[in-house]
């Protein structure tokens, strides 16, 4: 008996093999041209100065491209995708092995090794077929609404299915010709050969049949190569790069370095986006996960992150695309309805940055003067008075009332500089937080001081609104000012200020040690500087502020602190931690007038109301304002309280 094994191009005459190689080269050239065209479009984008450390990029690649962890948040699509992925890689590896066998002096596909090879490659093919079948089932039977529908989807899935299926048929026809015993290890081809043998007439000429099927299979392979840079297949090529070349962490924005050079900033044309932002657009697979979690989309506002990407992708694939204006497709209301909460970026399996792109689009609107109503007033007030509410700078200390707090003078020293922030200084809800925090610091005998009327807005409002110049002006003024004082750390309670001072000022030579009060309270409680007692309320829930949680990954500290207050029973809302639903106040929206759909704050508060808690605790003045507003409009004032964690801890200490 011959050892197990097979002739690679069995039954295929030489001229056809030569033709095959010619066709493969041709289809690869088509693929290369398509890919180079995409590459040239991306390269027309602007420079992108940001970068992430390579170790982090490698981690992204392993976690999200290889292990695909984000896909497994939905088990069905996770299994579907990993099957296609593993099957595809397996088949690719099998082909590579065959190439080695055929074109190198190595001869190893013999005997047991051949049988194992046969088993594994058929297994890969079967897994691939299962994955594709699941995908077809999901797209055309389950039809989840969030899935983006693109032209060529049926062609893609159908083509891939037939690609694998014709492969098995070819194998089956080869096996059916002479039934070698060892081929039982071809767990896909062998049973199929038996079935074919049963249903086809006795006088079937297997060789001819095999040759026809082989050509068919080849045709699908060629089509696959040719279409690789288009259709949904693109993501096979683009997504790994997108993960490897990720520029910014969640929610971070691209700084503008050429302020004062050109009058118009932002994305007036596609090429005004950075090359990475253009790459992001092509990397989108239209899976709809961003849309599913988007607070704007979920409250019937005219924004879906996926649709914005889709519109831009259509433009980018069009003629003269880098010169075309995004505003041919994207509407103004879409970019203004984003709360920059970051849920979309958290959900995106291919780590697309949505927020930086939306802010680039906002920048264009701002720099063409197209800002109206409360946004216009907010920005002008911020420019003139250093806070978006338009209060005089000298009123920045009114919140203190009778509380005595040291206001730092130039050259003076303190351990902790408390950054009050605009909400903490001017807004009644925010003032309650700063007062509570100051009382807490005094109880714990912390050496601290504030800047008083010399503090200005951190610039978060301006930056998220797309007014980069105003942000940089405020940042530079604040940094210059801060450098006049001596302190060890800056304490911030507003997550927006925390994020800006901690992550954004460093780009403008403002390197300070920034701590959030949740970090400080944890430390104080560890050192027994504060003792916590019961406060009366029992059932509470914690709302994660986006800029504290998703942006800065502080999820556990507030919960641990709540756990230290005797009697408090923390119930989690359905969407919590990194999946928390926004309060609706981010991205400048705490000042903007809601125009569409249901209030995001109402939707979020509904989750808390469903828990039946007595108190909603958060750690952000904007969240507190928005949720408190929701309590008032639900007519639950007095029944449900909204408090900042600092207030809770102050009353418990």
């Amino acid at each position, binding site marked *: 008996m011959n050892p197990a094994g097979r002739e690679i191009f069995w039954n295929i005459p030489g001229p056809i093999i030569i033709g095959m190689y010619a066709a493969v080269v041709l289809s690869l050239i088509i693929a290369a041209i398509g890919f180079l065209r995409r590459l040239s479009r991306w390269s027309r984008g602007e420079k992108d100065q940001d970068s992430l450390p390579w170790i982090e990029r490698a981690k992204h690649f392993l976690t999200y491209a290889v292990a695909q962890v984000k896909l497994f948040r939905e088990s069905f699509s996770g299994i579907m995708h990993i099957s296609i992925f593993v099957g595809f890689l397996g088949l690719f590896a099998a082909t590579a092995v065959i190439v080695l066998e055929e074109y190198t002096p190595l001869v190893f596909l013999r005997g047991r090794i051949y049988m194992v090879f046969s088993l594994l490659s058929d297994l890969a093919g079967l897994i691939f077929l299962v994955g594709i079948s699941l995908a077809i089932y999901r797209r055309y039977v389950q039809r989840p609404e969030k899935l983006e529908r693109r032209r060529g989807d049926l062609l893609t899935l159908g083509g891939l299915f037939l690609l694998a299926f014709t492969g098995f048929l070819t194998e089956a026809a080869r096996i059916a010709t002479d039934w070698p015993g060892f081929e039982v290890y071809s767990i896909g081809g062998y049973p199929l050969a038996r079935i074919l043998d049963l249903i086809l007439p006795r006088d079937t000429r297997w060789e001819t049949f095999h040759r026809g099927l082989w050509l068919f299979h080849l045709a699908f392979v060629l089509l696959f190569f040719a279409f690789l840079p288009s259709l949904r297949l693109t993501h096979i090529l683009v997504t790994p790069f997108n993960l490897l070349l990720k520029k910014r962490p969640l929610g971070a924005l691209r700084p503008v370095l050429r302020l004062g050079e050109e009058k118009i900033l932002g994305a007036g044309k596609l090429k005004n986006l950075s090359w990475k932002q253009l790459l992001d657009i092509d990397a989108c697979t239209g899976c709809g996960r961003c849309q599913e979690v988007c607070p704007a989309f979920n409250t019937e506002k005219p924004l879906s992150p996926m649709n914005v990407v889709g519109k831009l992708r259509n433009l980018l694939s069009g003629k003269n695309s880098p010169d075309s204006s995004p505003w041919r497709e994207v509407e103004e209301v879409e970019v203004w309805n984003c709360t920059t909460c970051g849920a979309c970026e958290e959900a995106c399996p291919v780590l697309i940055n949505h927020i930086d792109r939306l802010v680039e689009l906002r920048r264009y609107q701002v720099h063409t003067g197209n800002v109206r109503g409360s946004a216009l007033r907010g920005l*002008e007030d911020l*420019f*003139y*008075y250093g806070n978006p509410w338009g209060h*005089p700078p000298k009123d920045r200390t009114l919140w203190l009332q009778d509380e005595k707090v040291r206001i730092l003078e130039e050259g003076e020293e303190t351990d902790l500089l408390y950054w009050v922030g605009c909400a903490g200084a001017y807004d009644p809800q925010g003032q309650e937080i700063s007062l509570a925090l100051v009382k807490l610091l005094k109880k714990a005998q912390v050496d601290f001081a504030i800047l008083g009327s010399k503090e200005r807005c951190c610039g978060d409002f301006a930056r998220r609104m797309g007014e*980069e110049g105003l942000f940089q002006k405020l940042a530079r003024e604040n940094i210059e000012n801060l450098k006049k004082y001596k302190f060890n750390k800056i304490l911030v309670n507003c997550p927006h200020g925390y994020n800006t001072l901690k992550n954004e000022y460093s780009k403008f030579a403002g390197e300070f040690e920034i701590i959030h009060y949740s970090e400080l309270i944890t430390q104080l409680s560890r050192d027994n500087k504060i003792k916590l007692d019961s406060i009366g309320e029992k059932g509470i829930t914690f709302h994660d502020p986006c800029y504290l949680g998703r942006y800065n990954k502080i999820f556990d500290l507030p919960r641990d602190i709540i756990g230290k207050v005797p009697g408090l029973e923390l119930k989690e809302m359905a969407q919590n931690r990194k999946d928390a639903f926004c309060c609706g106040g981010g991205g400048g929206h705490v000042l903007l007038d809601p125009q569409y759909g249901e209030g995001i704050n109402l939707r979020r508060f509904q989750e808390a109301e469903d828990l039946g808690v007595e108190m909603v605790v958060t750690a952000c003045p904007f969240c507190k304002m928005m949720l408190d507003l929701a309590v008032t409009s639900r007519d639950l004032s007095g029944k449900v309280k909204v408090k900042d964690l600092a207030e809770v801890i102050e009353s418990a200490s």
Partner: protein
Amino acid sequence: MKILVLVKEVMDANAGLAPSPDGSRVLPDGTDPVCRIGPDDRAALEEAVKIRASQGSGSVTAVTVGSTENVNGLRICLARGVDRAVRIVTEDNPYQDAFSTARIIKKAVEKLGFNLILCGNKSYDLGRSQVGAILAELLGIPQVSRVVKIETGNRTRVQVQRRMEKGDREIVECPLPALLTVDHLAGEPQYISVNALLVAENQPVESWDLASLDLTSDKLDQEGSQTRLMAFEPPRPRPKKIFVPDSSLSPDQKINLLLTGGLTQEKKKGSDLLQGSPDHLADEIIKFLKEKGIIPSVSKA
């Protein structure tokens, strides 16, 4: 069309100003002053740039009177897109009266040449609404005040809407050249970004001294000023009026009136607060409108 915009850079009282110890002038009260142009001036600037855009040609020149420190007002104008910015430098005399200011500007605008002069109806600090009117008089050209809408279809005439009381508008037409003082209700201006202001920093601001206009400050003081500012005083807080209800009313009605500050009295004059389902309310409204003859009663055939 050659358009001139007159702007005045002022210190924003909202940011904290107080009279100086001798009461002769107003100074920042410790915090950094906020220098800007007032909303009326801003509206005049906006209208000027819009007219130029709608005509597709012409030029806009911004003119201000002030010291060399006054850089913000003209920078705002440049950032909004004026073609030329002229500052007439006067010596430290921040409260020269409207008449002398108008005389200075008269010389300047004659030198610049113009078809249309726009300025704010009221300045943001003293709010005297005088410079525009006096200037038009000195130039012998028509002036329309409180303008909220400008149409310049015909290049020899201009048609404007004036703001009257209670939302009324008056339509006025006058020949060019003319001077219009613009009210801030003319519309929401475009936002001017910090980036645009930075770009404007590289654009030139012409500085003219009084000598270049054949004027001297002595001459202006002696012959020019018609009024003299004596002193500033912070406003006295206005006592709040406390509503006193009619003693003949029942206690219930009195409490109600006290709580609403007398507003519920309105009810007595025949107005009624309707309550009920939307359908019922709609029916009532239609009935009311028919009664008053505002909509015709349709008889069912």
